[in-house]
């Protein structure tokens, strides 16, 4: 594969030399935006749905910092102001498309259709716009009207060594024709037999079709439909010990050999066909109305190798490591006997003897199941798929009115309904004949004959076959309505807007299984919860003359909780989290801007505080040998920082960009936690001592020096980027009061000694890109650009990861500490390392 890629690269590089060399600055801008789109929609966003899909795309035409950070820091998964993606709003033709259940927009929805998504209006959090009240992390509105696309055809071929290795795209647009029609279509295909992490593949199609009829000066109707049937397999985070043993920072524990081929246990299938109809009505010269209706059906599934009454088949399961045998953290430990050392060597030799030894042993799993068939016993190993499907309808109508030349009014309504269908299916029995739909976590707490171990009392002990639903099956229903309005005015050097919104949300759960732990509280509809929310926001710019200006933004908001954090254990029952409240957010921003012929600069300070927030997660809680569902309520977080962006135009063809920010994003109070154990079905309360835990998976300190040079139509960019203060996702249960009591994390004065949050290495990364466009006659153009990331091949930088939710000790049945484990989970967070040197070559042909 790599050989083929090199060949393609050489051919593509030689091709442009055959043509006359002319340049076009505008085209170069488009090519650079291709680069941005690539990084966003394909390399980074929405690719790790099981980790955290928390990246937002923010842009602004008025701020050097905000307009640059979008793709600049994406190799290290930089999050704007460390905000989760629910704090960024995305609109298509004026209709908000953030998922009503989790508040997030999934950028992979528009993957592979770069030419369709280029026309967008993006604003930072306190910038005025024509489509809505901007969110805490900004907002973007994509224009999908066919007349928005310049007439012409374009073909793009790309080769890279990232998640995929080849991409092809074709786009054709008619522009607005004399008969009032406009059409645009684009199709893109991305493929990789193996990405940069071993055992991963990529297979994705994206299509987009848009038609528009302009009836007259007053009415126009647009229709667009798109989708991205995609299939890709995943890389798993692992520990430094595993990376060391495999001698590979991109070691992937998710695959293994089956019949000599690499089989990945985690495969994501995703297809989100969407249709959008927009009616633009120009009422008169001053007033217009835009109405959009969007329908979307999301089909998302993600597979996982699971096990039942058997050993964990993950090759990097903790008991498989050398450090499980010998305490490498305390060499003087009395447990470090000769036998222990021999065990360490034994394990080390096994890991390093062959690649197959450190991957999934599929043969073993099939064999185990075959043996169980003979005993009439349930499967020990199988591949399950969790499904998160959504049926969405959204309607928006936006009224624009120009009161006079200095002032404008915009207002509108957004209505939405979302049905989120969450269920688990049997994907592959791995040769097994039998598996009953019972809660094996609870077997032991209750005997197998007890009804409480049934996942579905309506079909007790049902045998599961491939394709069948099992484990859980429920819908989350959300309906919301929002009214918003904005008034904007400009006078004597002051430009300001004031916006407000008010909305209502109702949500409920519908269970399709009667869970044994909640026989009377899991099947059918739950009660409905209603929330009233809203907020106000203002933004202003004061011109001080000579290119100097001050900006000020303020926001106050009450926000309904998202349905995905509103239920205690939606896989089990209908219970809402106790005392569910609207999140309260206060935010402010103060900035200074300088804009002269030679320099553009912005210095911005911001602060946001969120109170009464809700969070939810689930994981295996070792101390009680149970899967657990965790709700954090009354969450209090602060986000603040300083951002600097300077663009120096030293000559007409040489620019220097200086970009940097220093920020913090953390819990400011400890949090009440309630958790339910899947073995008992009862809710327990505790306090999670998570004060000062930071937002994870993003560098909180970044800095960049960028050089841009244009000569003879070529452009060259060189960027040196520095990343620091990267925190890993903290494990709540290690910081429960009860856990710290058990572990003895209490000082003499009786205060808890809260474990420090794990961090990852930052560092320096050099990125470079070069490109040019050639006019080849008859209006045809050929563009070529090469992007190289991490040129110095720094492979020590951590782009994300998480602490393991297990303990360094075992417990007795009464919850007291029993014994100290040799293996130290506290020293072994799971990490992802940023990719070493990687590149992408694009060749674009316009005709």
């Amino acid at each position: 594969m790599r050989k083929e890629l090199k060949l393609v690269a050489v051919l593509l590089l030689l091709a442009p030399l055959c043509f006359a060399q002319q340049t076009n600055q505008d085209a170069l801008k488009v090519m650079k935006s291709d680069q941005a789109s690539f990084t966003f929609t394909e390399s980074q966003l929405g690719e790790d749905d099981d980790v955290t899909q928390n990246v937002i795309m923010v842009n602004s035409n008025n701020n050097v910092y905000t307009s640059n950070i979008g793709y600049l820091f994406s190799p290290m998964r930089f999050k704007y102001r460390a905000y989760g993606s629910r704090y960024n709003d995305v609109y298509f033709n004026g209709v908000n498309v953030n998922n009503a259940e989790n508040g997030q927009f999934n950028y992979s929805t528009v993957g592979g259709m770069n030419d369709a998504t280029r026309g967008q209006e993006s604003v930072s959090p306190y910038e005025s716009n024509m489509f809505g009240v901007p969110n805490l992390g900004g907002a973007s509105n994509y224009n999908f009207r066919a007349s928005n696309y310049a007439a012409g055809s374009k073909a793009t071929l790309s080769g890279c060594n990232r998640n995929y290795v080849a991409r092809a795209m074709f786009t054709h647009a008619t522009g607005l024709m004399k008969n009032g029609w406009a059409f645009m279509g684009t199709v893109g295909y991305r493929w990789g037999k193996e990405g940069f992490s071993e055992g991963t593949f990529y297979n994705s199609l994206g299509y987009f079709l848009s038609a528009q009829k302009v009836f007259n000066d007053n009415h126009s109707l647009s229709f667009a439909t798109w989708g991205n049937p995609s299939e890709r397999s995943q890389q798993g985070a692992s520990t430094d010990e595993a990376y060391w043993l495999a001698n590979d920072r991109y070691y992937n524990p998710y695959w293994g050999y089956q019949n000599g081929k690499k089989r990945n246990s985690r495969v994501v299938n995703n297809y989100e066909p969407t249709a959008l109809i927009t009616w633009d009505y120009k009422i008169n010269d001053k007033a217009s109305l835009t109405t959009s209706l969007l329908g979307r059906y999301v089909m998302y599934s993600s597979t996982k190798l699971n096990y039942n009454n058997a050993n964990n088949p993950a090759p990097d399961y903790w008991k498989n490591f050398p450090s499980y045998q010998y305490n490498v953290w305390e060499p003087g430990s009395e447990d470090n006997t000769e036998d222990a050392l021999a065990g360490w060597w034994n394990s080390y030799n096994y890991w390093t003897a062959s690649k197959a030894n450190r991957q999934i042993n599929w043969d073993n799993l099939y064999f185990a199941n075959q043996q169980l068939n003979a005993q009439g016993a349930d499967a020990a190993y199988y591949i399950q798929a969790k499904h998160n499907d959504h049926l969405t309808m959204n309607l928006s109508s936006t009224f624009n009115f120009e009161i006079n030349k200095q002032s404008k009014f915009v207002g509108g309504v957004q209505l939405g309904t979302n049905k989120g269908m969450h269920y688990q299916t049997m994907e592959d029995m791995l040769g097994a004949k039998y598996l009953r739909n019972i809660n094996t976590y609870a077997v032991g707490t209750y005997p197998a004959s007890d009804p409480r171990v049934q996942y579905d009392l309506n079909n007790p002990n049902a045998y599961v076959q491939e394709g069948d639903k099992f484990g859980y099956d429920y819908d989350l229903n959300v309906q919301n309505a929002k009214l918003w309005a904005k008034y904007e005015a400009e006078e004597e050097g002051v430009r300001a807007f004031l916006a407000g919104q008010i909305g209502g949300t109702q949500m409920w759960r519908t269970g399709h299984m009667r869970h044994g732990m909640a026989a009377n509280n899991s099947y059918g509809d739950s009660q409905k919860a209603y929330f009233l929310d809203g907020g106000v926001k203002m933004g202003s710019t004061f011109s001080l003359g000579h290119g100097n200006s001050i900006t000020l933004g303020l926001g106050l908001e009450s926000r309904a909780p998202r349905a995905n954090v509103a239920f205690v254990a939606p896989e089990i029952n209908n219970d809402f989290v106790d005392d569910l409240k609207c999140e309260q957010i206060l935010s402010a921003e103060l900035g200074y801007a300088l804009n002269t012929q030679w320099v553009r600069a912005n210095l911005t300070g911001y602060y946001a505080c969120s109170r009464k927030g809700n969070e939810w997660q689930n994981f295996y809680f070792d101390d009680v040998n149970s899967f657990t569902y965790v709700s954090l309520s009354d969450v209090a977080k602060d986000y603040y920082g300083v951002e600097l962006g300077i663009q120096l135009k030293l000559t007409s063809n040489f620019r220097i960009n200086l970009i940097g920010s220093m920020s913090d994003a953390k819990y400011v109070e400890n949090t009440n936690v309630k958790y339910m154990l899947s073995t008992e079905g009862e809710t327990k309360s505790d306090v999670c001592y998570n004060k000062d835990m930071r937002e994870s998976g993003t560098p909180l300190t970044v800095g960049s020096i960028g050089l841009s040079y244009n000569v003879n139509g070529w452009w060259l960019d060189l960027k040196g980027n520095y990343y620091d203060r990267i925190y890993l996702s903290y494990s709540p249960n290690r910081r429960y009061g009860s856990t710290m009591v058990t572990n003895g994390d209490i000082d003499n004065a009786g205060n808890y000694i809260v474990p420090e949050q794990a961090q990852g290495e930052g560092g320096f990364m050099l990125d470079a890109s070069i490109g040019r466009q050639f006019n080849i006659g008859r209006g045809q153009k050929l563009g070529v650009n090469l992007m190289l990331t991490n040129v110095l091949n720094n492979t020590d930088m951590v782009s994300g990861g998480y602490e393991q939710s297990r303990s360094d000790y075992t417990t007795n049945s009464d919850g007291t500490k029993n014994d100290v484990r040799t293996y130290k989970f506290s020293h072994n967070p799971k990490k992802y390392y940023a990719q070493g040197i990687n590149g992408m070559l694009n060749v674009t042909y316009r005709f």
Partner: protein
Amino acid sequence: MVAMATTLFATTSCMDGDWDAPDLTNPPYGNNTITVRKATTIAQLKKTYSSEIANKGYKLVTDDIQLKAIVTGNDIGGNLYKQISIQDETGDMIVGINASGLYPYMAVGQTIIINLKDLYIGGYGQQAQIGSLYNGGIGRMEQDVWKQHVRLVGAPKPELVVPVEFDPTWNMADYCGKYVKLTDVTIEGADGKAVLAPDDGSVSLTSNCANRNIKGLSKTNVVLRTSTYADFANMVIPSGKVDIYGIATRYNNTWQILMRSESDIVIK
């Protein structure tokens, strides 16, 4: 263009296609190179090592001898823990292996060949056992060692494993480790609420196991031994007569019946 796109995707889709089951002619578990060069039997082993077995001793097997046996009990219900029981035509034994999740490989009815050279044989509470050294006595061998010393032969044939009616007057040394059936017995402690092996302190435990006296036999030195970690630990003790299936192990002069799974108890 849609047709083109659809065709393109249709021809390239499903990279994670249907996977054929691997060829499992040679089991991926154990050592397929083991052959029977010099056969032995369980009765011979019990005789050869009778002194070690009877006196909490152990001895390294130095002869190149192999034992062919059938698995009668495993950890499917979490009650036999890190051990399996085996039988041949001459007798029964326990094999200690320091691993959980053995039952898929050591299925009931699975014929195995154990290469005994370099393993230990000894007695734990006078129960004959194959294993390794642990704290100066016979203990469990590491799974890596076990995999080097065992070969799986053919598919499991559960029908080969038939219980023998338990007789408490048996010679313990000869019969311990046998798969048995106890007919029409009662379990002491049944009150409609008490469970087999509670971990709440209501019964005294030894090595995380609860012993419940079995009544209705000609002798009283028979207990039903259940681990608090067994899948059926929290099963309410049946108050009437039951049939019990299990492995009749000994701890010195007590018969300890180990059920393998919840279905090993049949309420009458």
